[in-house]
């Protein structure tokens, strides 16, 4: 990890040389500036929260803020983080090892329960991979075309098709060049690790990253998906049967039944964005998928995403985050501080009486049953029905 950290300037220079692009270094480069230690960290705009097991929590947000709590959210310590970009997702497959992702293509890793973090990947390296993938596709298509042309009995139409494909690929390469010349601009939006070795990160413009060695190498595998329009991928969640689901922009849901090697595109029948999916138990072996998103839209599937039905969420406000609580309650929250809950065994969602109108973007349940929320204004707590509880933050 330290290794890759040292490589950054060299690699960045290389990338600029390759792209023929050399911007003067910014006076303040948030990707390079270590996060400022701040007493306001637990009041920052926080975007995701995760449990480290027991009473331990970690939450990430703007200005490179990562805060960890060992006492169920009563007190928080700010971690040492080598960058100041907005962090969007965090996940700890074990109590010690965790990963966080964020803007400028940043992936961070901690091996000490979230106290200190190191850079594993950033947008400069990601841009190289984007270019490499685009170039690889061009080469591949050109190879196919040349092979076709070499054949004496080549079908005329096949050759035309191949020529067209090459044009497309070259066009795509140009586009990639344009995009990456703006520098490391693409945000990653969520991260999930199956165990301490294998994990996925998803992000904007259809980015899907995969590692099998704890993040020492991250591979850009966006082309495993059929996402030609490069829609954003907002969240990745596992299902009890080992399937993986990704909630995406423009009403797309993606499913992998083989551990992330291949992905199917599912269309629940809605054109707005899905910000996430709650997987709720349904019967003995089955599960219900609840995809939530823009303007309170909620779609349900009981057959692994094959067919979907719209569900009344009880709100017209965008739902940004969701969680399944220990007792089977589905807990959804979003903009305007709206909290909708559906207790286990019931069909209807009901609105919690929450006077706090600040948007909520992350949910994690504590062992006590209390629910920890993060969003604008930092951390706060509710009970299982979404009724607010005084949190340590407000008591200050």
């Amino acid at each position, binding site marked *: 990890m330290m290794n890759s950290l040292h490589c950054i300037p060299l690699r960045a220079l290389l990338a600029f040389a390759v792209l023929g692009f050399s911007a003067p270094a*910014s006076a303040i480069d948030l990707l390079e500036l270590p996060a400022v230690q701040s007493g306001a960290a637990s009041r920052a705009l926080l975007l995701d929260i995760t449990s480290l097991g027991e009473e331990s929590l970690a939450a990430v947000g703007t200005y490179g803020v990562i805060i960890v709590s060992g006492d169920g959210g009563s007190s928080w310590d700010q971690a040492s983080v080598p960058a100041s970009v907005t962090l969007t997702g965090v996940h700890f497959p074990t109590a010690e090892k965790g990963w966080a992702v964020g803007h400028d293509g940043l992936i961070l890793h901690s091996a000490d329960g979230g106290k200190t973090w190191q850079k594993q990947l950033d947008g400069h390296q990601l841009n190289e991979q984007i270019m490499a993938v685009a170039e690889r596709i061009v080469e591949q298509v050109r190879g196919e075309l040349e092979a076709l042309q070499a054949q004496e009995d080549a079908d005329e139409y096949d050759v035309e098709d191949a020529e067209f494909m090459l044009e497309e690929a070259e066009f795509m390469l140009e586009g990639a060049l344009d995009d990456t010349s703006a520098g490391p601009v693409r945000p990653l939006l969520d991260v999930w690790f199956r165990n301490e070795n294998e994990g996925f990160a998803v992000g904007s413009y259809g980015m899907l990253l995969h590692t099998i060695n704890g993040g020492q190498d991250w591979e850009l595998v966006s082309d495993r998906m059929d996402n030609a329009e490069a829609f954003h991928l907002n969240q990745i969640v596992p299902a009890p049967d080992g399937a993986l689901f990704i909630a995406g922009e423009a009403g797309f849901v993606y499913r992998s039944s083989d551990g992330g090697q291949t992905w199917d595109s599912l269309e629940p029948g809605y054109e707005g964005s899905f910000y996430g999916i709650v997987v709720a138990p349904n019967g003995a072996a089955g599960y219900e998928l609840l995809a939530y998103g823009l303007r309170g839209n909620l779609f349900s599937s009981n057959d692994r995403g094959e067919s979907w039905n719209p569900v009344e969420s009880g709100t017209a406000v965008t739902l940004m985050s969701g969680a399944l609580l220990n007792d089977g309650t589905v807990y959804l929250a979003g903009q305007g501080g709206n909290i909708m809950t559906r207790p286990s065994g019931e069909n209807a969602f009901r609105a919690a009486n929450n006077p706090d109108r600040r948007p909520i973007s992350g949910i994690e349940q504590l062992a006590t049953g209390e629910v920890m929320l993060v969003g604008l204004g930092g951390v706060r707590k509710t009970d299982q029905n979404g009724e607010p509880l005084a949190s340590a933050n407000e008591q200050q």
Partner: protein
Amino acid sequence: MSEHPIQEGLKDAMGQWDHAFYESESFVERFIYNNRLWVLLAFLLITVYLVSAAIKVRPDASFEKMVPIKHPYIAAYLERKDELTGLGNAVRISIENTEGDIFTEEYMETLRQISDEVFFIPGVQRSGVKSLWTPNVRWGEVTEEGFTGGAVVPDDYDGSEASLAQVRANIMKSGQVGNLVANDFRSTIILAPLMETHPETGEPLNFGSISLQLEELVRDQYQNDKIQVHMTGFAKVMGDLIEGAGQVAMFFLIAIGITLSLFYIYSRCLRSSVTVVVCSVIAVAWQVGLLKVLGYGLDPYSMLIPFLVFAIGVSHGVQMINTIMHAKSEGRDNRQAARFAFRSLYIPGLTALISDGIGFATLMVIQIQVIHDLAIAASVGVLVVILTNLVLLPVIMSYICVSPIAIRRMKKFENSGAYHHLCEFSTIYTRPAVARTLVILAGAAFVFGIWYGQDLKIGDLDAGAPELRADSRYNLDNRFIVDNYTASTDVFVVMVQTPDMECVTYDAYSAVDLFEWVMADVPGVQATFSLVGASKRAIAGNNEGSPKWATVTRNQWVLNGSVSGKDMPPGLMNAACNLVPVLIFLEDHKADTLKNVTAAVERFNEGFDTGEIKFVMAAGNSGIDAATNDVVSQAQYKMLAWVYGVVALLVLLAFRSPRTVLCIILPLALTSVLGQALMTYLGIGVKVATLPVIALGVGIGVDYGIYIFSRLETYLYRGLNLHDAYFETLKTTGKAVSFTGLTLAIGVATWVWSPIKFQGDMGLMLTFMFVMNMFGALILLPALVHFLIPVEKYRKHEVDADRLALETGHKGA
């Protein structure tokens, strides 16, 4: 009682005086008393002219006069002032429904009417007016197709339940809850930004008239049981100050009444009482008229100077009448008595008044225009008193003179046993044991004052508009808005300067974003607001409202897009795109809070290399407060050094003895130190309003010392011992000094009831200082003389003859 041995010696002295009377008249004196009618005529003409000027004086209050324009913060602000639009100078009018929430047809209709009234007030920047009814207050939401939005009150609004429900829904999507709409939905705000100049006349906007129009057109017309109006803003503060300052005229009348009655009780002579008061009023009229002629207005700070001029006039008038009465009682005719008084008082009077004037003038070292103006007003006033009460008063008295009954009464009183005993008792301060005790006590009080005064705070300590009282209508309105809305009224603005056309770049954005984050951790900072924050929200909005996208980006296209939407609030950057104001909302404007902020900005500038992006302090009301505090805290000791330096020098010139300087200055220093301790105890901070108080106190306090010491010295020259000399001093001057102290104190004590808090503070402090100075001169001074002045020296006449002439009023001519 005339058997007292000293009296005999005195009579001899008086005989010598008489003998020298006609030989010793100066040119000035001869000129004045040979042309008495012409002098009166000249005074009459000047008075007519200056009164006609004085009645044209209007209260004014301008922003730039109240700030230290040379302070780097203010200089930086004034340089960019025109580009920092939409900062600050707006009026917020909150319309409250006392019987429920705002979603009633009646309320909405009233709001519409008031909104229209405000819109048409000249000086209101109409395009910037915001209320639920203005089309620039919009709601917006992200849908599958992108942004949609509209005016909060829809075009088809008809007051029906359905329409009101629509308004409620739109408000929820407008982001205005806490801003234009109260958190409890029982009131809404009409925001009216003001222009710099009046649109028709082109003159600077008159805040007093704006404030008055708001009162008449909004509060008087619409406020009733159901509708309550709350108004805040700089223009309202100024308007209320001007209005409150107008009430000061009433206090002035009260002060005149009290003085007149006290003077009558003191002198038992109506003629001379009225003459002294009239002369002092003429001094005030001249002072105000001269200010107008010199091009100054009367701001709420210098509005107190007329009181001071009046009080000083009376105090010197007392000395004059006192001397005339004594002269008359010794058998001189009217004209001789007046001339005698003039002759014996114009040197010490001139010394005292000139040291007052110069003492006040030292206030000019403070680079704040209102204090400058106050210094000029006070100096002009003191100079005027020289003419009216040292020249005009005895001339008038030479015609009318004091009534014979009054003189008989005075003689009876001064020869009465009670008065004699009082004076005799007061001489105990010259006894060694008492003097020692007094000096030790004074030393202890001095040390205590210094120790206690260490906690003296700089700046304003109270919430709201500290110029006004906590329970004033303005501050109640302000509290209503603070309680029911989210936005704070204390704003510190940092001006971020970028290269031209580079305010919307990653370099600028990353630096500003980091800066805002650093400031969020500063104690007392509630929130920050800037172009970058608004851009981040717009970027999130362009990404379907997802907060995960609410961040700065290197993508120039995205940045450009984020600032081009019509929901971008105005005033977040300038036209040349090289200036981005960062608004820092504070919990209060206490000096410590402001210091935290300025220190944090300085730390940021030192700690982070932001390249060409410069973070420059400061604008906004709190920025100005911070600069003012800075200037005031530096000026505090500088001013004291100047005042004491100048006064000490003048006293040294007059008495030519450093020991005398100590005798006169030390009681004043004790008063200054105890004054600071009192300010600490009362929770009054050192600010523009209270800073001049100590200088004024010293300037006027030195009079007592000069009068007492010069008289004491006269008797010492005649060979009396300290006890006897002080006894005689008390008998002749002590009464006048006590009376003066009381008159001055009462004149300023009436300010305590002023609706303007800082006038009240000034009044309280000045009352304390005048009384303390009086006691200092009467009690501590003789004790100090006991220790510091080698009395034997006087007996041996080892002092030069000029001094004697000076002190007795005999000019060598």
